[in-house]
């Protein structure tokens, strides 16, 4: 890989953190055949939950001595940093989690603790990014037309400290072409369509034909589920996403039918917000609660602290109906979900990960079904 004089100097820097970060970028560039590094607009760092990185990750973060040089956002942590007791989190976990957050803060990472950084600062078409959270990666590439690979938490942090990332994979137009057509039949929930499509096509980039026009939130659910069950870093949606007609249409195609994935378990928790809810989704939840009445079992809604603060009044009304709106975390990365038997979700991503990561049964329902269950 070609390095500029300045990049060569960073590889020999007296600052060990900078040197190591540069070493990581160069190693990844070599492994994946990048010709050079490219400047990034922002980075998004995963591996924030103490549950995920443990003492080894925590102590490594505390050992770093540098500052990020581009905007860098933190993915969700393992708890709501204010209301963690209400989630049933113990104080030992809280202390460890806060040490991780303080270490990131010291590096200059914005403590956004969200998987939806695009609600805080929306990248532009063509921007290069180094984002790590798989659902945010898919959203940025597909819905916005920005360019990022699926980074690891460590490589995203290295990119934030150097301000660059190796230019390979989805940073290059030729690697963004659709490889297979996915035709979604009528009546399939977008999150479930993503879940099924991922199982069918794995990590291939699809050109998706939906039977109707989807909102950005619906595309968010589709992409998050696709990335979780399959591994793709982006998708194109016919007439909906910015690059869908920039490439040849693939010949091979698969059809996503309305499949039955109902586990049939009796939910003792209904959890919304994977990825974190937008303001629009909070409004929809509230109108559904008005329709169906007070919440009668545990119902948790996850969003970013910023979106919650910007919609204070709405959030208060939702909480008056008996649901809890938590910030900074989600049902997938927080150990809090592990104590339930069966969690009902409207997210294909949470449906995929809850049994694997939290050892609990998951049940899928669309947003309206989730609210109906919570209120009956």
């Amino acid at each position, binding site marked *: 890989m070609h390095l500029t004089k300045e990049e060569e100097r960073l590889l020999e820097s007296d600052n060990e953190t900078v040197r190591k970060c540069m070493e990581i970028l160069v190693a990844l560039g070599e492994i994946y055949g990048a010709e050079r590094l490219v400047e990034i607009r922002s980075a998004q760092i995963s591996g924030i939950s103490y549950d995920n990185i443990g003492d*080894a990750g925590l102590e490594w973060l505390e050992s770093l001595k540098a500052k990020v040089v581009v905007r860098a956002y933190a993915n969700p942590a393992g708890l709501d940093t204010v209301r963690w007791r209400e989630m049933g989190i113990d104080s030992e976990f809280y202390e460890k989690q806060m040490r991780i957050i303080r270490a990131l803060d010291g590096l200059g990472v914005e403590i956004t603790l969200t998987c939806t950084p695009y609600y805080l600062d929306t990248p532009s078409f063509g921007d290069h990014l180094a984002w790590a959270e798989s659902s945010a990666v898919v959203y940025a590439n597909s819905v916005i037309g920005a360019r990022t690979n699926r980074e690891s938490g460590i490589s995203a942090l290295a990119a934030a400290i150097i301000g660059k990332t190796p230019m390979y994979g989805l940073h290059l137009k030729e690697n963004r072409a659709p490889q297979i057509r996915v035709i979604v039949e009528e009546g399939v929930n977008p999150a479930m369509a993503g879940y099924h499509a991922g199982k069918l096509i794995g990590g291939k980039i699809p050109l998706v034909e939906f039977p109707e026009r989807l909102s950005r939130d619906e595309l968010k659910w589709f992409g998050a589920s696709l990335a979780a069950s399959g591994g793709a870093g982006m998708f194109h949606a016919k007439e909906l996403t910015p690059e869908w007609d920039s490439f040849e249409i693939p010949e091979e195609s698969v059809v996503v039918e309305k499949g039955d994935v109902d586990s049939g378990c009796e939910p003792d928790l209904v959890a919304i917000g994977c990825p974190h809810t937008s303001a629009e989704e909070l409004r929809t939840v509230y109108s559904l609660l008005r329709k169906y009445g007070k919440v009668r079992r545990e119902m948790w809604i996850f969003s970013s602290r910023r979106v919650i603060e910007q919609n204070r009044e709405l959030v208060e009304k939702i909480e008056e109906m008996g649901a809890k709106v938590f910030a900074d975390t989600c049902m997938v990365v927080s150990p809090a979900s592990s104590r339930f038997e069966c969690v009902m979700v409207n997210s294909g991503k949470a449906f995929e990960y809850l049994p694997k990561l939290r050892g609990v049964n998951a049940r899928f329902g669309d947003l309206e079904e989730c609210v109906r269950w919570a209120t009956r």
Partner: protein
Amino acid sequence: MRFRARVISRGYAEGEAIVSRKPVSFLGDVDPESGVIRDRESDIFGESVAGKIFVFPEGRGSTVGTYTLLRMKKAGCAPAGIVMVRSEAIVAVGAIIAGIPLVDMPEADVLEVIESGDHVRVFAEREGWVEVEKR
């Protein structure tokens, strides 16, 4: 014997070689507290990689494996150096943050020319090479 290799994680290491001809996952296959290979399918099952030059073809498995190398370093049971046929992000990044010298794409067929017990030196600075002294 001496041959060139590509530098992935910088540094210098030497020690006794331990060679696996099968891909290795650092999450699950290796005990992070002792460095002993606990994957029953492995051709070096029950042996330790601690303090040795670990030679293997490629990595496999979960991305969490990156942190395993850090845990091994902290527990004092990490390999002293790594020679891989072809590295990937998980082991590469883990080796860099744990400070374990790593080279890959060696110009010799390391799985043939290096045997467990040989003395191996890994030079991974601006240029990379590997020196092998047969035992």
